[in-house]
């Protein structure tokens, strides 16, 4: 099994959980280590409970894992919730002045810090956090220099006195641990690699910039807001127009307006905002103006649990807006893929002049992962499809050139794709309409209804579906073809299923994985070809009703042998899947709903 080390830092919102988290993340990344971070938090600005898990290792760390090696509770509540989950070899560093430990398992090291003796707590409100970081660092076998360097950067703006004070407090924690606590047996390793650490939201925003997005607008909604924040902060450098607007209805319509003028335009939201965008998506499809819309799923329905993860919006995406129309839907597989997917889906949306939908979720949106810088390559190939633009304002063009000519915006073609001229191009004047229309854009909805023309236009648009299917690769199986069990997942569960397969293989159950990235087009035949050979199939998904299982059945008639589902707001941990697979292979159940043991 992979050698990893996981730290949990917990406390009330506002107690400063994020800062030590960021600092540890930086230290690990500068040691050339991979990491995965997940913050279990609540919809509260001050108070409540939040637990940040940072897991690091020399190999790719795809999920939060099953165990904590080091717990740093910043308040009694965190101690009470999580100490009992620590197992042999783990340690807990806490403020002995204010926090009392409960019963701990054998082999768990309790590390009380006499905070008021080690630091002036009247001056430094977060002294306990800084002391704990210093102590933890020593126990992990990392030289103090690493922490000092990050603290200097962190507090540089506040002046030398603040830097010196924080470095001093951290040093006191470091030295105290050297004298009083037992170090972990395996020091945290070091490699020569360098990784970028980023969230899925940042990755999707950067992927948008790399795809050539020039217009981004949004209405704030967790957990998608991070995309807006990155876009807003980097807009001027990247030359992107970023607007925060009145509601998600405004968002989708402005995005379509900008796209119609000829730029690449994108927006992101969560399930509730996506519901408001539904009518607009139909317009994008009907007027054949491509946009990319990201839905960062959170636990629903309705306001639901805004800070918790779920894969519960698949059918909303499949059914968004009324009527039949071509669309593309993809679910990124990990945070690196959040970057890579955006230019790919823009190329498809542009080529096929239809909406491209990205189905992300809180786990990826707000989680953080180490990604190799070469996987954040901005030099992406851009295919804008059949687009007619001018690179000027048309000044001096003659009136004759401004006449319509014989340009037909919705020309009927074999591919269903009609060359798209944008406003401002002489000689291509036309009106686009959400009403059904003829090839030249004239309505056939009111005065000139005509069943033959209506049918021809429906078929023209829907012919694009075949082209989209040919442009998207079918999914592939990873792992041995003749495994005992095939685990089928989609989107963000890739990492945790991968690790569950590794554990199963080590424990004598051979497992392989079929992870779906492109939901529309699905490539049902290719999936059936794979699953026909599988001995035992289980669909793993983060929702109540098995939304993907129902979709797969509707497209292919395929019924799996079992299901593993979770809808408590928290993501899967590897052992949840491993234990459920074993139970199902032993014939104990066909539907497992693992209990999330961590109270967050």
């Amino acid at each position, binding site marked *: 099994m992979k050698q990893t080390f996981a730290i949990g830092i917990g406390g009330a919102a506002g107690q400063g959980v994020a800062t030590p988290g960021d600092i540890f993340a930086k230290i690990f990344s500068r040691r050339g280590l991979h990491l995965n971070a997940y913050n279990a938090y609540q919809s509260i600005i001050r108070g409540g409970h939040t637990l940040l898990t940072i897991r690091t290792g020399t190999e790719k760390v795809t999920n939060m894992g099953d165990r904590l090696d080091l717990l740093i509770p910043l308040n009694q509540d965190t101690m009470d919730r999580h100490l009992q989950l620590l197992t042999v070899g783990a340690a807990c560093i806490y403020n002995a002045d204010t926090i009392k430990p409960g019963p701990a398992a054998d082999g768990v090291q309790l590390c009380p810090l006499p905070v008021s003796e080690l630091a002036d707590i009247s001056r430094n409100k977060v002294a306990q956090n800084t002391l704990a970081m210093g102590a933890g660092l020593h126990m992990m076998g990392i030289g103090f220099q690493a922490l000092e360097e990050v603290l200097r950067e962190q507090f540089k703006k506040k002046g030398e006195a603040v830097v010196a004070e924080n470095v001093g407090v951290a040093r006191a924690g470091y030295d105290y641990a050297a004298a009083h606590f037992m170090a972990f047996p395996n020091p945290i390793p070091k490699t020569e690699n*360098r990784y970028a*650490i980023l969230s899925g939201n940042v990755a999707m925003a950067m992927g948008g*910039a790399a795809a*050539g997005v*020039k*217009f981004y607008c949004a209405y704030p909604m967790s957990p998608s807001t991070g995309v807006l924040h990155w876009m807003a902060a980097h807009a*001027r*450098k*990247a*030359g*992107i*127009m970023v*607007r925060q*607007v*009145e509601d998600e*209805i*405004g968002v989708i*319509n*402005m*995005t*379509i*307006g*900008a*796209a*119609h*003028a*000829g*730029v690449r*335009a994108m927006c992101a939201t969560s399930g509730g905002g996506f519901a408001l965008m539904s009518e*607009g998506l139909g*317009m994008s499809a009907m*007027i054949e103006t491509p946009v990319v819309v990201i839905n960062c799923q959170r636990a629903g329905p309705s306001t639901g649990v805004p800070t918790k993860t779920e894969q519960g919006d698949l059918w909303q995406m499949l059914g968004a807006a009324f009527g039949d129309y071509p669309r593309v839907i993809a679910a990124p597989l990990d945070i690196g893929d959040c970057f890579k997917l955006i230019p790919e889906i823009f190329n498809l949306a542009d080529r096929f002049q239809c909406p491209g939908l990205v189905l992300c979720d809180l786990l990826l949106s707000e989680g953080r992962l180490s990604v190799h810088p070469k996987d*954040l390559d*901005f*030099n992406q190939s851009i295919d804008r499809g059949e687009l007619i633009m001018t690179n000027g*304002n*048309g*000044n*001096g*063009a*003659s*009136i004759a050139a*401004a006449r*319509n000519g014989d340009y037909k915006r919705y020309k009927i073609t074999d591919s269903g794709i009609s060359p798209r001229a*944008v*406003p*401002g191009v*002489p*000689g291509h*004047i*036309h*009106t*686009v*309409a*959400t009403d059904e229309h003829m090839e030249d*854009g*004239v*309505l056939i909805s*009111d*005065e000139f209804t005509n069943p033959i023309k209506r049918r021809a236009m429906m078929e023209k648009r829907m012919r694009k579906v075949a082209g989209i299917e040919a442009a998207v690769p079918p999914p592939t199986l990873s792992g041995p073809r003749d495994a005992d069990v095939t685990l089928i997942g989609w989107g963000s569960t890739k990492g945790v299923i991968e690790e569950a397969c590794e554990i199963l293989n080590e424990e004598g159950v051979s497992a392989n994985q079929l992870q779906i990235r492109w939901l529309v087009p699905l490539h049902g035949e290719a999936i059936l070809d794979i699953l026909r050979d599988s001995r035992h199939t289980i669909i793993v998904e983060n929702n109540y009703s098995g939304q993907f299982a129902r979709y797969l059945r509707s497209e292919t008639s395929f019924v799996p042998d079992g299901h593993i589902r979770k809808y408590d707001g928290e993501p899967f941990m590897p052992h949840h899947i491993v234990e459920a697979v074993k139970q199902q292979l032993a014939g104990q159940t066909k539907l497992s709903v693992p209990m999330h043991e961590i109270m967050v």
Partner: protein
Amino acid sequence: MATSVQRASQQLTMADLKGKVDPDWCPGCGDFGVLAAVQKALVELRIPTYNVVTISGIGCSSNFPGYMNTYGMHTLHGRALAVATGLKLANHELTVLVTGGDGDGFGIGGNHFVHSMRRNVDLLYIVMDNQIYGLTTGQTSPTSRIGMKTKSMPFGNIEAPVNPISLALAAGATFVARGFSGEQKHLTELIKQGIEHPGFSFLDVFSPCVTYNHDNTYQWFRPRVKKLEDDSAHDPTNWMAAMEKSLLWGEEIPIGKFFERTDVSTLHGAEPVLNNGPLVHGDLKVPPEVARSFVEELM
């Protein structure tokens, strides 16, 4: 619009502005007068037709773009202003006209109406206000008067109507005017001013529905409308005075330019990202050194 209005190198004619099909409005509909006035204004301003985008929502008057020979978008009910905002920000060299009705703009589109005005998006928004829902065969609209009987309120409307002029003034529109489709020359002049105004121009036009509104007819409006331009005391730079005028209703109803200010930046003018010209003409690629800095800040 204003600073970037493009001029055609040759004289335009009314025929140049005529769309592919003729309007399917009821004979006598007020919207014919608005269409003619808009076409006349574009001819007189000599704006190349391919640089104009006419954007509408849904409703009788929203069929408008199809009757024009400009680029057009017939969008969703109430959403024309949002679509127009995105389009204008992506290519601010285009002249953007937004057309629609009172239900489209003040009912379902009320949210976008208010926010577009406070943003000072540079476009002309013409509402063909007939105080009724026509395409859905005669229901009460946000501008229907109290007591008006319609199919949806057969015993008379009990809700107070919105006052579009006061609302526009309060929301920060930088050009606020009212026209009457029975006053062609006056209306054409207001449209020209609205197109040339730098910022959000709101033009509410009394455009009688001859089929479903038997209260607010041409005959009802004609003796009541009084041109603000004929009132030498009216100062369109005085916001308070404009607000007071906006409240007049009854025997005397003012039409004309209530208010204009040009000291407020347009939305596109306030955004430095557009300093190098329209986004649509820019390079799609992020410069390599900028891209590198984006990745390095994560390391």
